[in-house]
């Protein structure tokens, strides 16, 4: 838990409005809100850069990976740091996993990282980081992140 109770309640109210399934997830805020980094960076375990393949070339994106909002580009980005695609998001000893969410057009919207206890950690845009139990807690239409379309893992 971070910040004071009033702020946490305010932040959670906004998060649950956008991601209604979080209300029953027993999730926790795990950082202050910040623009320093985003979900992709946090999935890659860095809090010093904002990762995104923006066409204006403002943000960090791994060298040599197409700068485009496609699932294949996101897979390639995580391959640069040792991840490979895998079939499911179950907890596997000695492996770390990430999950890529995409909208109905298969455009990536979010990436979450699995923790050693099997729960997930997500940086919510310019909001806080949260630790959540289920990947499905951030899924849904409209303002949510769509659905999980790819899981990747790497040995740790």
């Amino acid at each position, binding site marked *: 838990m971070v910040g004071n109770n009033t702020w946490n309640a305010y932040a959670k109210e906004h998060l649950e409005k956008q991601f209604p399934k979080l209300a029953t997830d027993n999730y926790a805020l795990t950082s202050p809100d910040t623009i320093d*980094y985003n979900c992709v960076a946090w999935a890659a375990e860095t809090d010093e850069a904002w990762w995104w393949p923006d066409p204006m070339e*403002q943000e960090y994106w791994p060298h040599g990976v197409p700068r485009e909002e496609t699932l294949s580009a996101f897979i390639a980005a995580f391959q640069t740091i040792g991840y490979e695609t895998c079939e499911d998001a179950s907890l596997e000893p000695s492996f770390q996993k990430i999950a890529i969410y995409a909208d109905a057009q298969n455009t990536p*919207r979010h990436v979450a990282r699995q923790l050693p206890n099997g729960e997930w950690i997500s*940086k919510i845009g310019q909001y806080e980081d949260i630790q959540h139990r289920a990947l499905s807690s951030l899924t849904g239409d409209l303002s949510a992140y769509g659905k999980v379309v790819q899981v990747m893992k790497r040995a740790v």
Partner: protein
Amino acid sequence: MTATVPSHEPKYEPDDLERIFNHLVQWVLTDTRSESSTLHIAIHPGYQQIIGLGQPAIPLLLREVERRTGRWFWALKAITRQDPVPPDDRGKTKKMIEAWLDWGQQQGYRW
């Protein structure tokens, strides 16, 4: 043929500009706080209107950058057609903020 600007091109009084700008900033931030996609943020209609304000919005954008309220680098680059951020510092928010604020001071902007 030479392109021209009509003499009745609207101009904003400073207070009006700041009021309009602040309204647009709040609109963008309210709608895009959970976005990681810089592209989604930049194509928000409020963000596009901020870019449309043009050069008079630059010191106001630099103020927002200094306050760390959001990702305003795209708007600054779109308006100024300059990019003071070295390629190796792309995405590194703290260094991007430093680069743009230094640029603003060198250009004579005050905010």
